[in-house]
């Protein structure tokens, strides 16, 4: 069942279509990647999902019902890209305040804060101020304040920026754990290697429009260029012309070939076997999300104009 559905969402600012007819849905428990270059409209989409903006047109269905910002924000946890906490406020009080704003009672909040502080080894921070924390530490704190109220939907905008590998892993593990326990995660980033690693489904937006939607696997299949890495000592002489493939590049121990239109991988193997070539390996080369991203987005003007309405 889908936790969140967006139907034909539109948001226009004075002279810019920030979000122009975007629809997608996210299944419960999924880790979902919302991708796009700077200024594509990701933040505007997120702000509509978090109830900060009202869409000009379209519907948001949250947990089976029409999204009602006042009631539903308690079930959403949002960590914006630009982190923010009160610098002069004590960490314990601050976490308590943000939890209560999300609708937790004092006792509930206290219990959960203690749990999370123990888990992240932050017990000694209670009376410190945010300005005393390092960037990585305040990032961890921000993550805790985002997920403390056990939201059904967690929206993380670039959650790993500024984190060292150890803390990065810690947060990553937590994201997996939260997803396993039924939380749905929207993960907005332009770091594609993280998306490939974490997300099951992605949507790519550019200039306010959705240009790609699917699971990571589907997307890769969709944009594959029929490239294979063939591990042979020597390709048969005179391959060009009669062979069912073109040689793209020659590497040590392997050749990158592109299968010609109308042929299948088996045709390649057949051809090689027939010519008596010794085959060590035969692998399909799928494009990385990074390649797809660049291919789709490159050449389109990606000004951040829409924010300057």
């Amino acid at each position, binding site marked *: 069942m889908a936790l969140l559905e967006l139907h034909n969402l539109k948001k226009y600012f004075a002279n810019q279509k920030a979000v122009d007819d975007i629809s997608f849905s996210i299944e419960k428990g999924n880790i979902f990647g919302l991708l796009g270059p700077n200024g594509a409209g990701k933040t505007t989409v997120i702000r509509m999902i978090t109830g900060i903006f009202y869409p000009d047109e379209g519907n948001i269905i949250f947990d089976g019902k029409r999204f009602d910002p006042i009631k539903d*924000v308690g079930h959403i946890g949002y*960590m*914006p890209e630009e*982190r923010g*906490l009160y610098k002069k406020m004590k960490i314990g009080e601050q976490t308590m*305040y943000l939890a209560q704003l999300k609708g937790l009672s004092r006792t509930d909040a206290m219990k959960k804060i203690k749990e999370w502080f123990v888990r992240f080894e932050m017990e000694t921070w209670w009376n410190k101020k945010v300005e005393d924390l390092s960037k990585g530490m305040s990032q961890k704190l921000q993550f805790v304040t985002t997920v403390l109220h056990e939201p059904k939907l967690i929206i993380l905008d670039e959650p790993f920026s500024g984190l060292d590998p150890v803390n990065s892993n810690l947060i990553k593990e937590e994201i997996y754990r939260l997803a396993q326990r039924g939380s749905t995660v929207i993960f907005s980033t332009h770091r594609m290697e993280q998306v490939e690693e974490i997300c099951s489904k992605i949507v790519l937006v550019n200039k306010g429009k959705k240009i790609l939607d699917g699971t990571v696997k589907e997307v890769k299949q969709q944009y594959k260029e029929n490239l294979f890495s063939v591990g042979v000592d020597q390709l048969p002489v005179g391959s060009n012309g009669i062979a069912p493939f073109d040689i793209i590049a020659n590497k040590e121990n392997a050749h990158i070939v592109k299968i010609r239109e109308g042929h299948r991988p088996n045709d390649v193997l057949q051809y090689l076997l027939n010519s008596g070539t010794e085959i060590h390996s035969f692998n399909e080369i799928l494009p990385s999300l990074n390649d797809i991203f660049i291919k789709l987005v490159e050449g389109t003007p990606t000004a951040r104009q829409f924010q300057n309405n």
Partner: protein
Amino acid sequence: MNKILLIIQREYLTRVRKKTFIISTILFPLLYLGLIFGIGYLGEKGKRKLNVAVVDQSGYFDKGRFERDTSDKSAAITLLNENPDTLRSKLKEGESKYDAVVVIPQVANWEKGFDSLILEANRTLGMESVAPVQNKLNNIWSQIKNEKLGISDTTKTILEESKVSIKPININDKTADSKLAGTIGTIAGFLIYFILLIYGSQVMMGVMEEKTNRIAEVIVSSVKPFQLMLGKIIGIGLVALTQFFLWILFVFIIYNVTRSTGSGDAISGLVGKTQEIFTSVNIPLVLFCFAFYFLGGFFFYASLYAAIGSAVNEDMREAQSLSFPVTMLVIFSIALMTMAMNDPTGPIAVWASIIPFSSPIVMMARIPFGVPGTVPWWQLGLSMTLLVVGFIFTVWLSGKIYRTGILMYGKKVNWKEMIKWAFRKS
């Protein structure tokens, strides 16, 4: 609603628990009193007591009169029978025990008096220190004149003390004491003025802090921007109110302490004045109106300051230039109040106390003169209604500006742009 309470609570507690709040609450009245008494003390202390030698060439003055004269103790004058030039040269060398020399010249006609005597000193003197010398000489000279004209002491008393003096009374409100009312009104007006400026800019800084810390986006994903703004304004308003009540408490404690110890210093003089105030001014009404105009004015201006805070980026100068028109309105109100105090029932006073932007200060200054004697009920009612309408309007307007501004970064905004945000349909 519950969330607004949380925001109010946070805004209030973080400010009240700050050391600066406690220190400023205690220090402000002390500094204020210190300033008043300190200036008086230093003024007394710093005044130079001139010791002046007088040489009489007219022949009207005699030594005895100089010695008997006790009219002004802040200067000493001695009649000398010496050559003025010797005195002058001694003075120039710095060897004289006198600070200055006055030579009274010969005159043909005593009735015309001595116009413009010269006080010769070896440094520049201010009027402050010269005036007592003039007083003393005038005093002695009047005695001489009186004797010459044959005026007895009784006649002199009649001449000097029988005068016409006028005291205004409002026939609608005979207890009103316009001088006292003027003082209370001015103090109340200035208090509101300070509160508007100090706490208004606190609201602005608070909003800017949230914006530059980028916490605004986190918070508005939990509450509506309007709730955040209103919570902040109310929270800070309560801080101001707390500070004000603490000050009233201090006054009350000082009042009781000084009354019981019966010490006759300046503070208990103030206490005596306070008692006088209680009898001649309708204190409950003034206090109620003070609370009303304080809150109304605060909402009116603080919401404008909040809108400005939301529109600017980290730049303090940008904030200052944007808030300048608002600050000018407050300062202009004080100017209007000064005019209103001279004529509390004149057209400027009436209109300035009805129009919302200046009414908190001007009306508050007029109320101690008496309701309904000076301020008719209809004026008070209209003024209060318009102030409520006014602040509802500014809060609404600012709410719309705030909602756009708080999430907008990196753009320099002017008033025109802000007005556009305010009237854009959502």
